[in-house]
């Protein structure tokens, strides 16, 4: 149990560092909401090597902490709505048992942006935000795919060695 607590702390720190690194590399696309989603790497890794419950809590805690450290309350709201939606979809895609980690991550990236955009429409009360819908979907798929490839290589190499 103690060993697990230490491991989870380590993964939370890792996810937090990913969030921080991401704030240092803004993608110059000029469209709000497009980002790499580096921290999702940790979520996917945990989802495959430890379990859904752990992946979920690390993801939620990471968003809360990074929101307070590098962002603001609004950032937390959007990140959370995106992350919860994305996590649910990733879990469902993984449960099918037919699709690998790259597909799971790609679906996660797409639905993260759908969740975030949905929240933006609710808050702004203006469907004009939907103008960027297709671009955000494409961006989510692309970044999800890249993160999926990275996660896959990590899982193949060290995924089996993470146990308490």
């Amino acid at each position: 149990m103690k060993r697990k607590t230490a491991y989870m702390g380590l993964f939370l720190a890792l996810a937090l560092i990913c969030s921080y690194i991401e704030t240092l590399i803004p993608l110059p696309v000029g469209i709000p909401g497009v980002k790499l989603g580096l921290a999702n790497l940790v979520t996917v890794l945990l989802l495959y090597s430890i379990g859904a419950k752990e992946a979920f809590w690390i993801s939620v805690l990471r968003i809360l902490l990074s929101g307070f450290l590098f962002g603001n309350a609004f950032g937390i709201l959007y990140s959370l709505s995106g992350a919860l939606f994305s996590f649910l979809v990733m879990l469902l895609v993984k449960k099918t048992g037919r699709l690998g980690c790259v597909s799971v991550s790609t679906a996660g990236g797409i639905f993260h942006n759908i969740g975030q955009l949905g929240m933006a429409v609710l808050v702004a009360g203006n469907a004009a935000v939907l103008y960027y819908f297709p671009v955000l979907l494409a961006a989510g798929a692309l970044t999800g795919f890249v993160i999926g490839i990275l996660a896959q290589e990590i899982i193949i190499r060290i995924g089996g060695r993470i146990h308490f």
Partner: protein
Amino acid sequence: MRRRFRKADWIFLAVTVCLIAALLFFFSFFRGEAGGSVVVTVDRTVYGTYPLSEDAVISIDTEDGHNVLTIRGGEAKMTEADCPDRLCVHQKAVSRSRETIVCLPHKVVVSVESRKENGLDAVAE
């Protein structure tokens, strides 16, 4: 997990790429023409409408904070905001109809309208 990609993955990714390409293609038809004016809304109510043809610096004061929208050379850009993330300021300038700039913390939405959409012209057509 030994095999990197399975057959289902290829199918899934191919379908995803096709769907998104179709969506982008479909939406490209709705890409707006050169806009006539920008409409600024704050928390769902219209704050003001400004023509893109005249250069202007518009100060937007909301309950949540302060923004400055600058219209120059037929393009509108958010040039100042006192929100924490300033995503709206980093966003590129807008000039084509239906393009928007959003400052979510202040609930400010700036959207471009085409010339036809303004007022009576739309009714007359």
